Every structure is written in C-alpha cells, then in structure tokens.
C-alpha cells in the first residue's frame, strides 16, 4: 500500500450494463480525479444516465468494477452509494413544494429524531450555504423558489448528506443563461473545496468553459475516455460527438421543386419553462423538397415543429401556401394540409388504449367515407385501417389491437400511414426513425422519399446526421433557437455541420 491517497475519487472499469435487447454501456471506463470537474457528454440514449445510475447505486452492472477512493465497492441500493459520499442531483427535482428548504433537506434523515427544532437547522444550512456560495432562504417554501434556486436546494441536500462526489444530470437544461453562469461559479467553488464533480451535458460550450476532463459516450461506447479539455478544438469535439457510421443506401431521385409551401418568417417562441427557444427564425420549404433540420437536441427543434402545427404560441409569421397559420388552433394547420409526425409517438402521436382503427382515423374521422359531421361508419373505418395495415406493413394481430401493444416501429408506421393518407401539402417529421431497428428505419425513410416524389414539402427534424444527409435536399443547422446556416445536402461537409451544431461557426450564406 502506498502512503499517499489514491488520486482518483472514482474509478469505473469495463462497466457493462444490459437492458432487454439493448447494450446500454459496453465496457465503459470512467475515472474521476479528486477536485476536478469531469464532463460526460453524449446524445440522448447514449448511456450517460445509465452509467451514472450505476455509480449512484440504482443499477447493478453486469460486469466491471467500481472503486471509490481506491476501495472497491458494490452498491446494492442508493443508500450504499450515499454512505460512500456519492450524491446525485437528478434532472427532475425531487422536492416537496409545500415544505420549506430546511424541511426538504432534512427529509428522510435520522436527525432530528422527534422534535423539529427548525431554527437550529436553518442556521446549519446557512453555514453550508456560506461555504459553497449557494444562496437560498432556508425558511422559504419550495413553491416560492425559481428553478435555479430549487436546484441549489437539491445540491445542498446532497452536500448536507456529506457527499464529496457529486453527479449532476444535465443541470443546465432547466436554467436560464444568467443562472447557468452562476451555476458554473458554484461548481468551481465546490471543487476548490475538495469536492469532485461529474457533469452531464450535451452543450459543448458549457463543457469547454467549466470542465477539466471529458468522457464522450456514443451508443453505449466511450469514444473518448478522460481526455483533457485543454487544447481540445471545436472540430475535435464535434467529431467525437457526431461520429461517422455506415450510411444506408436509400436512393434519392433528382427532381424539380415547385412552389414555396412553408414560409416561416421571423418566428420567436418560448419553451415550456418560459425560456426563449426560437429566436427570429426564418426558413422556407418547397414542394417536392426535403429540408433537414440538424442540431443537438433541445436547441429549439421541438418548438419549431410545435409553432408550425399550432401547438405552441409564437411571434412572427408562418405561411402555408400563402395562408397565415401562426397562433391558430391546431385544427387550422391540419385543414391547411399540414401532416405532423410528432417526436413523442406514445405521448402525442397515438392514443394508447384505442385501437389501430381508431388511431388511424384521428385526422379524417369526419370525412367520407369514414364519417360525416355527426357519425362515424366504423365498418368503413375498419376496412380503411385494414388497407393501411396491409400497405404499410403494420405487424399486429388485427386492426382491433390497441396501440399500446405495438412495437415502436409499428406504432410509427401507424402514425405515418395516418399522416400520409390525408395527402398532405406539408409534412413535419420529427425524429421519425429514433429508436427503431434497421429494417423499420429503412422502410420509414422510403416512405418519406415517396412523399417527396409525390410533391409534398417535407421538414425533417433529426439528430441523425447521416439520415439528414441521405434524405434532405438542403440542411438547416439549428443552435439555440437560430439557424446557423443552410447547406446544400449534396456538398455539405459533415465537419461544417458539426461546427454549426456546436455554435462555433455560422455560415454567411
């Protein structure tokens, strides 16, 4: 045994975590030095949260070892991890809104046992706040606090429990820009006092400004393990994150483009948290054209789809075939011929307990032969659903099957069948192939190209760059609610796109 303490707070070696059908972490290594901020980067579903949940005692790895301060550990529950000084600040806060800050911090602890001498503990918490610069009134109720303050309460909670290794799961996702700056300061002051931090994010500029070292995950595999941030160029970062993989060969025919169908002019909007999500954004899509939208998730893509389909309020103007649709009810966009393949198949795109038939008539249940103003002819609806099931190769026992019993790929085909069968003028497809297997991806890409041939204007929002490069005619890159540039897909350079996605480059065109 060496006399000097081991330099690493955490060492995770060859971690393998498997879920049914998915290898979430494939021999991942991660080492956290004492007093450093270690960034963990990766797209949605890359396995970041899984890896961290293993460190916090929520999952048990199939194989691999975890050492904390040089001592090998095996966590049976989060309690074991907390006992070793590991605290996790989750993306979704776990606070009781009607109780005070102090009460929330004390919740679940053995002290105080019976009498709540709150003022005494308020004082303790104030001292802790002093130490780390996490200012928040201990007597305030949680519901009175801003999101940033609530996050400080979550951090205080872990510190109060004696954590010296903190895991922050996308802490900046909920914060406004000024709050983010403040938060960065807090992290630095915590590491100065000997805490070690793992910082999960997919915003590159934050990572480069605050972290010491970096680990990148892609599809469960580490593409970079603990490399120094110093001297890391934007190009290199983008490449690590975007990566390259085999491109499917889907044939795209050259074809003439027609009139402008979608004309978005100077649109701004806020996200659900009231933070600006779209900033004076303009774009156009023509008949028979696929405009791809590239960008890291959370840069305003969802909001863009929602303002066009009438699901979100905005300022500015959105014309479809010359007609204004911004800030109308969603039915207005539907009547103007807008089809929408939503990002959330189960939460928005379908009704889980209704049958395939009922899900396929969602947008045309009032049109002959399926229905009229008053009634629905379910015999006609069922035979239409059977035709669609056949044509789109939807695998299900019958059209009476409930949507929730379908696999992701089949559910997506139900949505596409419904949206395409109304012969749209404009189709907005958001992450249409996410989470699907190769076969389903290919057939859905074919369906989108067929729409293009039929003269539909398509807005394709995807995080898969290869998909965008294969399908799109032009690619617009979004970053923090703005278009960084629009490139012709034929001669688009993947590195350029990567740079624009990270906000490092803006094209003049």
């Amino acid at each position, binding site marked *: 045994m060496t006399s000097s303490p081991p330099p690493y707070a955490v060492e995770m070696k060859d971690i393998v975590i498997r879920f049914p059908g998915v290898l979430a972490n494939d021999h991942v290594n991660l080492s956290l030095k004492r007093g450093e901020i270690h960034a963990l980067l990766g797209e949605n579903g890359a396995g970041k949260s899984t890896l961290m949940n293993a460190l916090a005692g929520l999952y048990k790895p199939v194989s691999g070892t975890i050492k904390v301060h040089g001592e090998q550990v095996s966590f049976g529950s989060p309690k074991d991890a907390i006992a070793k000084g590991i605290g996790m600040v989750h993306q979704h806060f776990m606070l009781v809104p009607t109780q005070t800050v102090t009460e929330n911090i004390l919740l679940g602890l053995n002290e105080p046992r019976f009498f709540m001498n709150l003022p005494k503990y308020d004082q303790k918490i104030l001292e802790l706040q002093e130490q780390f610069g996490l200012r928040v009134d201990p007597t305030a109720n949680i519901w009175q606090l801003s999101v940033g303050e609530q996050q400080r309460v979550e951090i205080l909670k872990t510190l109060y429990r004696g954590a010296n290794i903190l895991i922050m799961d996308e802490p900046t996702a909920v914060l406004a820009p000024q709050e983010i700056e403040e938060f960065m300061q807090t992290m630095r002051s915590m590491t100065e006092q000997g805490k070690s931090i793992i910082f999960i994010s997919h915003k590159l500029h934050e990572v480069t400004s605050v972290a010491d070292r970096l680990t990148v995950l892609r599809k469960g595999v580490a593409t970079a393990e603990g490399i120094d941030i110093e001297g890391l160029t934007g190009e290199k970062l983008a490449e690590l994150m975007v990566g390259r993989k085999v491109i499917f060969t889907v044939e795209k025919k050259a074809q003439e483009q027609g009139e402008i169908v979608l004309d978005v002019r100077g649109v701004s909007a806020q996200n659900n948290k009231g933070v600006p999500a779209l900033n004076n954004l303009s774009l156009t899509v023509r008949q028979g054209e696929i405009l791809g939208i590239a960008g890291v998730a959370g840069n305003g893509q969802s909001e863009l789809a929602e303002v066009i389909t009438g699901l979100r309020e905005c300022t500015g103007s959105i014309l479809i075939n010359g007609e204004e649709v911004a800030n109308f009810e969603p039915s207005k966009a539907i009547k103007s011929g807008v089809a*929408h393949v939503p990002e959330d198949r189960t939460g*928005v795109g379908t009704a889980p307990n209704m049958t395939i038939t*009922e899900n396929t008539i969602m947008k045309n249940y009032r049109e002959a032969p399926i229905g009229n103003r008053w009634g*629905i002819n379910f015999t006609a609806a069922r035979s239409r659903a059977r035709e669609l099931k056949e044509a789109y190769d939807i695998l299900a026992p019958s059209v009476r099957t409930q949507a929730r019993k379908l696999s992701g790929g089949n559910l997506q085909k139900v949505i596409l069948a419904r949206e395409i069968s109304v012969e749209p003028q404009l189709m907005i497809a958001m992450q249409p192939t996410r989470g699907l297997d190769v076969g389903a991806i290919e057939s859905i890409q074919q369906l989108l190209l067929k729409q293009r041939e039929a003269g539909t204007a398509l807005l394709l929002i995807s995080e898969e760059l290869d998909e965008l490069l294969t399908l799109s005619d032009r690619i617009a890159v979004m970053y923090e609610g703005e278009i960084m540039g629009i490139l012709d897909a034929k001669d688009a350079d993947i590195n350029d796109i990567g740079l624009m996605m990270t906000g490092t480059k803006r094209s003049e065109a």
Partner: protein
Amino acid sequence: MKFPFTLHFEQRTDDYPKWLPAVTSLGSVVVAFIISGIILKFIGGEPLQVLKFFFSATFGSWPVFSDTLVKATPLIMVGLACTVAFKMKLWNIGAEGQFYMGAFFASLVVLIPMVPLETTPKIIVIGLMMVMGMIGGAVWGFFPGYLKAKYKVNEIITTLMLNYIAIYWNNFWIFDKWSDAGFQMTPQFDKVAWLPRLSDLAKEYPMFSGITLHLGVVFGLIAAVIVWWILERSTWGYQIKLIGDNPNAARYAGLNITRNIILVMMLSGALAGLAGMSEISGVVHRLQERISPGYGFTGIIVAWLAKLNPFAVIIVSIMFGALIVAGREIQPSGLAYLLQGIILFMVISSDFLLRYKIRLVRTEQEVA
C-alpha cells in the same frame, strides 16, 4: 417435496376475446355472493336461506320486481351520466347535486306554475318537466365544466361542493316558500304532472294493479341507447374517448378540448337532472327533502361496475336496485351493503384478468 407447479402472470400482448369482460364481471358477482355466504355462515346465519329470501324479495314476483325496477330507474340515468363524463376522464362526483337541480327545475313547471295545469294536456306538462329537469342538471354541470375548461379548477372538488349547494337550495324552497303545512315538502303535484304508471292501467288489465313501475324506466332505456350511439358511433363520442385516453393526442389531432369539457359536463348533468325529474314525477309526486338516498353517488359505482358500457349500466342498475330493495327487507339491513361492497371489490379486482394471462408452469420446466 415441492409443489410441482407455479403460477405465472404474464401481461397480455394479444387482444382478449370480446366476451371476456362479461364473463369476468359475472364471475366476480358469483364469487362475491359466495364470499358473503361464508361470512354469513361465520356469524351464524343461514346463507342459503338468506340467498333464497334475497331473490324472492327482489325478483320473486311482479310487484317486487317492479319495486326493483323503480329503484333501478334513477340509477340507470345517473349511471349513464357518470359513464359519459368518466369516458373523458372527467370525474363528475356531482350527479347527486345535478339530480336535485333537475328535480327542482322540473318542479317549477308545477309550482310556479309555468303552464295552466287544468287546461294543458299531460303530454305537454310532462314534456316540459323533462326539458326543465335536463336544463337544471345541465346548468349544474356547466359551472364545474366551465371552471375546469377555462381555469383548470379541479372538477372533483367543485362538483362535490355543488352537491351540498343543490341540496340546501332545495331545502330552502321546500321549508320556506312552498312548504306544505310546515312539513319539509311541497304540496302534492297535480295528477297531470305524474308520470303514467302501470297501475293506471289496472282497470283494463287487473294484473297491473298495485304495480308502481312508471314511465321513467323507458326514459332510462332510451337514454342508454342514445348514450351508446353517442359514445360508440358518433364523431362526438370519438372525440370524448380520444380526449379521455390521451389529451395531448387530442390536441394534436385538432380537437377543441375546452368546448368538449363543458359540453360533456352539461350532457352528464342533463342525464342526472332527468333522473331527478323522473323521480319526483314518477315516484314521490312532490318536491321534498331526501328525494335521493345517494343515487348520485351510487351512480358512480354503477358506471364503474358497468365498465362504462351504457347497456351494462342497465343490468348493474337493476342489480343495485335489487340490493336497495333487499336492504329494506332483510335484517340486518347492513347485509345488502356488505354484499354491495364485496361485489364492487371483486369486479374491480377482476380487471386483473383482462390485463394478465395466468399460466400454470411446471417447476421443472422453469429450471430447464
């Protein structure tokens, strides 16, 4: 030696046969009777005797069956009221209040009077009372619907509270304005405002003498058909079900959720209001205190047991009507409530069988 089989519960991925819900519901009622029988045996009763008496007191002859149907009539309409609202996941707990308001509005026709009672034909008086009853219930459904739709006020609280307002509103009028010689009831209505009963036909058909079954039961049956058509065949019903199953998808499909919340609450209220009208016009023939022994709340259970199927509401209502009649006949009367509780518990538990398949698996196979 170990038992060579284990029970396996698997989530159903296929469609269950159409008849399965009916079979499991019926099965749970049978199981509920058996369990009640066991309890009876334990406390020293004679389960078979009680069961026999139970059936003879509720279904045994035309007069008692008629009593059962009279009790079932308001339950059918209130059960339908809850069915409509619950399909959209609107938790209307206010059918009781809507029932009272329906009764109050229908009484206005007679008590003001809105039409000269001596000269107006019965069909007009009754028709007017029906319309007024439905308006009364619909108004009482409109307020919570509007508050929910516009300001996201929890409808469970508002409908529940409005129940008390409706009951005391009624009390004010029957104690103060229209009290019959100081009793908490209005004078008896003129016969023109009575719903026709089968006993009215006793002169021509002696078999109907003493049979109190009134026309309200026909309202209930027609209402069930209409509600079935709305829910299963109309565009509106499709919207109601879509909003109930996934409001996000409904908004995405361009539905007006705000308007539907208000309309569904009004339809629900109108059905409960019609039940109130049928009860005062068909049974008590005056507005009085406690015209409902909690029909509005029993209706919630009825709708739930019927799995929100309008025709099953009829069958369940008759069963509950029988339990109410039996509660009056059997001592101790708590027995009927015991049975009611066990049935409810069993039927709700039987949902498990629709979601899961049960398989016997040989333990050895498991190892291999």
